């Protein structure tokens, strides 16, 4: 009830304001004229209104109010240039690309031509220019854009019009506006609905589109279990703190700032900038490190990229090779452990197959990750500082040889950049820092996934050392993440699919599950008419084990 009442009010208001702009003030004060079309008592009043409007459409010269003067002025400026609407935007863009100027262009257009001639072209042009002006995520601008459509004209008035595609170009254009909103994740509001009803009427294509958006958007709003805030912290230390906490995925993990960024002047007068060093370690990791055999080295590896929306940060890990089986000792059962009840039964019976619900997954032991850190300067000296900081809480590090296996610092992953422009926009490499273009169709994902997988494989083969190679088949960069699971394995979790793999162990089969997953995500994207906001990855894809794990994860996620 409340919704409909609100709708009603808004409709009247909109009509009023609209009319106020078009009509001389004297004609605009009659609110009773503007009843919703759906009301049963349309009758003559409604017709009268329409006639008034049409009257204005037919003879703009009759109006002697301000708008007309304004139009004349604009006409002059328009005469100077070619009348493409792009140019109109570009003219304004010379001054400043802001919301205000964008709105001004729309105002100029709406006031310029009372007949709204070429409004479809204008809207298309405006849509294209929106990102440039930084208003692509502004609902009010979209509503204002929709407002450019003349009202009531395209509303089918009889069943035949309703049956056929009434004013197809206009409807298509209306759908396109909504489509762009959707791609930027902008949820329409009640005003949008009122506008659409006024422009196209109920049960038209734009209205249907609106309804679909309103059906799916709320459903997917919280579908990402690991949301990233819209605004990431600006301060690199805060950002590192946030990213590390996110990756560690452990409530007990403690972030330590080993060094704040600062600038120092040495004795020789040279200015030295000290990088920030932020690390994270959980009690479980400390325990695992304390149990580590000091004869086996630990490695500082990195940098590994982590995408947080449009920002890429790099992290380093302290890890060890997996414990060889001969060193794994199970704690023997001590019957004198529990004072209250037997911890084990002295029975020669195992679990029945029917009740064995564990998955048979081939586990690839990747070795534990003991700690992670982020720093702005990934050289050995800086990381050494981190390790000595860690040593305070993990004295065992003093006995374990620590090897640094560092990459060349943040650098480009090749292989994806040289594809055609469409694929580049869909699969941004880590360092391009190029925002994925949202306007593309989601089908591209499915079709091109395989190609990209092959490309990425090529990248993998170029990697000479055993290290983590993260291949991002990016749909959107608003959901990246890596985290360490309970057994201290690192899981890459990025927008799209990441495969973390030692190069010598990667071969084509291992990537198949990823393709399957990509297809799944692609379908999902098609289904929802938008890019998914979360994606999945598994560690150590090795043959069948990986595929079953990925499938399992898909299922979990889709559930």
């Amino acid at each position, binding site marked *: 009830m409340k919704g409909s009442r609100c709708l009603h009010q808004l409709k009247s208001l909109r009509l009023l304001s609209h009319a106020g702009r078009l009509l001389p003030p004297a004609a605009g004060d009659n609110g009773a004229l503007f009843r919703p079309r759906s009301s049963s008592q349309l009758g003559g009043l409604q017709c009268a209104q329409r006639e008034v409007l049409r009257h204005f459409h037919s003879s703009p010269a009759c109006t002697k109010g301000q708008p007309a003067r304004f139009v004349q002025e604009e006409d002059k400026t328009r005469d100077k240039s070619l009348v493409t609407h792009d140019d109109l935007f570009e003219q304004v863009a010379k001054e400043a690309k802001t919301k205000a100027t964008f709105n001004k262009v729309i105002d100029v257009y709406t006031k310029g031509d009372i007949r709204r001639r070429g409004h479809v072209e204008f809207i298309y042009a405006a849509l294209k220019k929106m990102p440039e002006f930084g208003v692509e995520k502004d609902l009010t601008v979209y509503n204002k854009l929709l407002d450019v459509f003349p009202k009531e004209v395209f509303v089918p008035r009889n069943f035949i019009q309703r049956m056929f595609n009434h004013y197809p170009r206009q409807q298509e254009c209306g759908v396109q506006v909504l489509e762009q909103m959707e791609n930027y994740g902008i949820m329409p509001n009640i005003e949008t609905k009122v506008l659409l009803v006024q422009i196209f009427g109920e049960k038209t294509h734009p209205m249907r589109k609106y309804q679909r958006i309103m059906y799916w958007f709320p459903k997917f709003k919280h579908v990402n279990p690991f949301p990233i805030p819209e605004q990431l912290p600006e301060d690199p230390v805060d950002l590192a703190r946030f990213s590390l906490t996110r990756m560690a995925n452990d409530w007990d993990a403690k972030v330590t700032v080993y060094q704040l960024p600062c600038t120092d002047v040495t004795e020789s007068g040279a200015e030295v900038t000290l990088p920030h060093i932020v690390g994270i370690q959980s009690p479980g990791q400390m325990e695992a490190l304390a149990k580590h055999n000091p004869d086996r080295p630990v490695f500082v590896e990195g940098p590994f990229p982590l995408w947080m929306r449009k920002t890429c940060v790099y992290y380093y890990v302290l890890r060890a090779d997996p414990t060889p089986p001969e060193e794994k000792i199970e704690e023997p059962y001590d019957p004198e*452990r529990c004072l209250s*009840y*037997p911890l084990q039964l002295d*029975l020669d*019976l*195992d*679990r029945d197959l*029917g*009740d064995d619900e564990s998955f048979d997954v081939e586990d690839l032991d990747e070795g534990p990750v003991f700690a992670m850190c982020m720093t702005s300067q990934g050289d050995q000296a800086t990381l050494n500082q981190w390790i000595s900081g860690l040593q305070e809480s993990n004295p065992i590090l003093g006995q374990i040889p620590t090897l640094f296996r560092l990459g060349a610092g943040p650098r480009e992953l090749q292989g994806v950049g040289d594809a055609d422009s469409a694929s580049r926009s869909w699969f941004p490499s880590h360092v391009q820092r190029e925002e994925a273009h949202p306007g593309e169709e989601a089908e591209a994902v499915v079709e091109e996934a395989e190609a990209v997988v092959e490309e990425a494989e090529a990248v993998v083969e170029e990697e000479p050392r055993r290290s983590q190679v993260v291949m991002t088949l990016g749909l959107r960069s608003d959901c990246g993440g890596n985290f360490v699971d309970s057994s201290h394995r690192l899981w890459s979790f990025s927008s799209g699919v990441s495969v973390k793999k030692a190069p010598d162990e990667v071969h084509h089969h291992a990537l198949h599950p990823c393709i399957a997953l990509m297809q799944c995500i692609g379908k999902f994207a098609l289904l929802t008419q938008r890019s998914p906001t979360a994606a999945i990855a598994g560690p150590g894809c090795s043959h069948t084990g990986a595929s079953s794990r990925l499938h399992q994860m898909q299922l979990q996620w889709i559930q």
Partner: protein
Amino acid sequence: SVSLCNTSQGCSAGFVSKVWKRDAHGYQQPLQCCDCFKDLRACFVLQAEVFPYPEIGNDELEEIKQLVAPVEKFFSDDVDSAKIDREATIPPETLQGLKDLGLFGIMIPEEYGGLGLSNTIYARLNEIIALDGSIAVTLAAHQAIGLKGILIAGNEAQKQKYLPKLASGEHIAAFCLTEPGSGSDAASIQTRATLSEDGKHYLINGSKIWISNGGMADIMTVFARTEVEVDGVKKDKISAFIVERAFGGITSGKPEDKLGIRGSNTCELSFDNVPVPVENVIGEIGGGFKIAMNILNSGRFSMGSSCAGMIKKLIELTSEYATTRKQFNKSLSEFGMIQEKFAMMALNAFVMESMAYLTSGMMDRPGIPDCSLEAAMVKVFSSEGGWICVSEALQVLGGLGYTKNYPFERFVRDCRILPIFEGTNEILRMYIALTGMQYAGKILTGKIKEMKKGNIGLAIGMVSKKLRASLGASVDLGLTGKDGVVHPSLEDSAKKLEQNVSLFGSTVESLLYRYGKTIVDEQLVLKRVADVLIHIYAMTAVLSRASRSISIGLRNHDHEVLLANTFCNDAFFKNNYWMVQLQKHSPENNDANIKKIAKQVLENRAYICSHPLERTY
């Protein structure tokens, strides 16, 4: 009734001797081994001689009556529980009174200056002592656990040296096991005892928490880690020591501010290089684990009678109010919902009493019968029943009960400790279920292995047995009928017990088949197994007690029959429900969901639902 008495008692004796004999280790072994099922049933219900209900001699009864009267008088006249609760301390004159009554040495043999009473009389006295939670806990910490180590495992010299003063109450004992990082986990005990260089002393270092009587104890049983050489390998093992406060180096912390039992003293104790002479080791060095376990296991049985005593008192207090308070021209006692509360309290008191005295009677039998399983069952049942009864008693008085003008709120607070101390009920349920499973598993392993190998004959036999049971074939364990041990007026209830036991036998078998030794990890399953076991034991206890009461014509035995039948009926349905839940994929079984909910909540460490007022568009 005389003839009934003969039937019942004569036959029950025969039944027992027919089915049971004791093996050399004192464990009961079933003689009839024709069928595994029967053994299983037998092992759970008739593990000890429960029919007839244990009796005490006339002299002993007389002794009890002589003892109980002054104690009762002391508690009603000289103990001001409200004051003890308010001031969080037991006044010295009250303690002196308790000492004069000999209550500090109830179970210490007479040769060491104690009263030398049996478990049964100890349980009886506890009914009265429990009227004040603080005193009950102080006394229990002193003699049920504090000095128990010396009593059961100490050598003659230690007994001679310590027991007389403990019995008189001149010295107060405490039991020091729990540590900040260690509850039931013996492996995480950090307190360490190291042998001094001259080999005459152990030096104890470490700290213990939640020590009842910790602030005033003079003698402590302390458990500490010691290095022991086993087969040439040095190992850490737990040892028990008698530590006197006079040895020095012991500091006690501030008394804990508790919800209930506020008059009892609970505090932290820290040991700093406390020298303990080697002769103060209880038992042998490294043997502390078994001692601790025995002390804990033997201390629990009296909770049944304590709770029963408390509920009986509560019934007296509340019934007066319920019969005098009028609403709508009717007294409260005429309202069904109030009546229900009284019936429930009476039922609970009856069952607790029955279980407690059955258990204590079994413990008093010659030899050292291991009744830890039964004691645990009594503890779980009575602590939970006690909590409900106390709360319902308070409810009868409504708002009045909530105020400090009445003792009910104090009872509620005091009662809350029962499911927590002396082994939490969760841990005891594990103990009950796993002990039962271990026992059943030993008998059934062979059979289950055969079945898993695909022995068709066995499988068919099992299916037909299940079929017969589902078609309503009656189960006869010999409780009723011509040679039965249960009185005919309880026949229906006895049949229900038999049916439960039979179904339980097959349930346990299927559980072992399904989970094998991994059942240790199935806590939700084990919880139900424990609950069924507890209720089966409770049914057995009430049937045994009521049969005896009818047979010897005790006053109001018809009321006992009523209570017994009501309880058995109720327990029968509960048991059936739990056992249906224990079947695979039964719809009542929500286990998977419960685990999933808990997992998601715990992963987020919060209640994760969106607020109902939240919106997404």
